[in-house]
């Protein structure tokens, strides 16, 4: 039993129970989310361990990481702010919002703040077109949507994360 399996034994068992017994490979996407939970990204070690659990090759697991945008193979900010700048949101001011947000946070799109707390990314449609500007925040724990946002309300959100960090 490898480290990932040992740590999340019950959860992994429940995931694999969703699929036919001879179709373990279906567990690759949920297992990658588990691997990403702690550090916010997938390590080579995680890939090897998932491959072992599912009885496929590490290359096959790595191909899934590369194909989908919500898996990361590099560390980013603890909170990844993913702003939708796709066409419907852009028609409602998403591009200006992103630019002003970056200016306020002091980083460029694709960068992470010096304290490692926040990354800002521009992403494709998130199905929140009627509530632009909007973004999702991805952490290892999951995702949440923030809609009808302004730079002010976003800065307040970031401040609340900072406070949370300090209070530990």
């Amino acid at each position, binding site marked *: 039993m490898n480290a990932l399996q040992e740590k999340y034994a019950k959860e992994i068992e429940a995931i694999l129970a969703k699929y036919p017994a001879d179709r373990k490979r*279906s567990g690759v996407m949920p297992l990658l989310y588990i691997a990403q939970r702690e550090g916010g990204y997938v390590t080579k070690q995680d890939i090897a361990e998932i491959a072992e659990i599912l009885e496929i090759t590490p290359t096959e697991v790595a191909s899934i990481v590369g194909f*989908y945008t*919500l898996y990361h193979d590099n560390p980013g900010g603890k909170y990844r702010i993913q702003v939708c700048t796709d066409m419907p949101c852009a028609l409602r001011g998403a591009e200006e919002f992103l630019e002003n947000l970056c200016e306020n946070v002091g980083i460029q799109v694709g960068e992470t703040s010096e304290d490692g707390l926040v990354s800002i990314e521009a992403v494709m449609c998130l199905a929140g077109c009627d509530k632009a500007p909007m973004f999702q925040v991805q952490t290892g724990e999951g995702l949440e949507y923030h809609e009808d946002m302004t730079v002010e309300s976003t800065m307040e959100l970031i401040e609340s994360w900072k406070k949370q960090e300090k209070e530990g």
Partner: protein
Amino acid sequence: MTEQKVTGHRILLRHRDMPDIGEFDVYTAQNGFETFKNVVTTMKPEDVKQLVLDSGLRGRGGAGFPTGRKWMFVDNNNWPHYLVVNADESEPGTFKDREIMDKNPWQFFEGIMCSAFAIGANDIYIYLRGEFWPLAKQLDEQIEKLKAEKLLGENLFGTDYSLNIYTHLGAGAYICGEETALLSSIEGFLGQPRLRPPFPPAVGLYGKPTVVNNVETLANVALILEKGADWYRSFGTPESAGTKVFSLSGRVNKPGNYELPFDATYRDLIYEYGGGIIDDRPIKGIMSAGASSSVIVATDEALDTQMSYETVRNLGADLGSASVIILDDTVDMRWLINKTIHFFKHESCGKCTPCREGNFWMQGLTDRIWAGDAEQVDVELLHDVAKNIQGKCFCALGEFSTMAVVSSIERFPEDFKV
């Protein structure tokens, strides 16, 4: 059309009229899950399929294929069968399935449960785009509730019918909305489309007969079975029965989801419900089906067109998933196609050359055209590249990438004069 008339028409967004319908007890107090019980205990799968066919229900994911007919293609010589619910909702401008599952979940569940019975499936997979993580968690909790209420599990209502539901989260890939790519994704492979035929009702998930239907499509089913095909056909037009959730976005005052019968017009949607154009500016174009649609010139004739499968086609566009994006006179079509091409270039799965290379090439051209560095010959080249992609892609999504490009250049030539 008055608000009153439309309120009476709400089938899918019933939570707007009955705010607590998302509560299990409120839903069951409205005879919720009685239809499912009746279906399982008194109906034959064939009769359920026939009733849904008779209702005229068509697929709401975009293709508009008759739902009952799709179900009848399921191969009864090969078992088990699967029902897969497409909740990938990734078309720019589309945000309806999210509201249905979030706010009217039990009707959604009852619909998919009746549908599974119809096709003889004991397992349902709901494939949600990864961004719907909190929604998947909510659905997982609701599935537990259904198990506890003995509406899911083995030998339901004392019959030999058993049913389970599982959620599966995607991880950010537009292509997974294509049904065969979605199936590959569940199987743990890259989300790339498969050659069709065979179609999923013959060879689908794990090689077994599978029906893939959109969330909105299936959310209709329980009410159709309760109230009958004639009731359902009393809404809409002869070829487009029922109501549709229109996701309205872009340069309008009140963007959002509006459920209207198919005989409502673009003018109704944009001006009566959507509150008109921002700052009362002139409307320029309508994208009827998200980023993958041809752009309609917003003439009076177009605005007075009914939003049905058969009539939108007369405008040189498709109803699709009915994600209606409004463009006003501030929108430069060079900017618009640059945005749509950036989307498709990013989302091309890479499997087939016309889409993978074509979008790469188109992006180079639209970047140049939008930056003002292009010559007239570049516009012609872009049009030519797009036309040459058409009809040659492995799946429909490659085709989609060319729609806005070709229609914008042909219908809004003044924007492309160099």
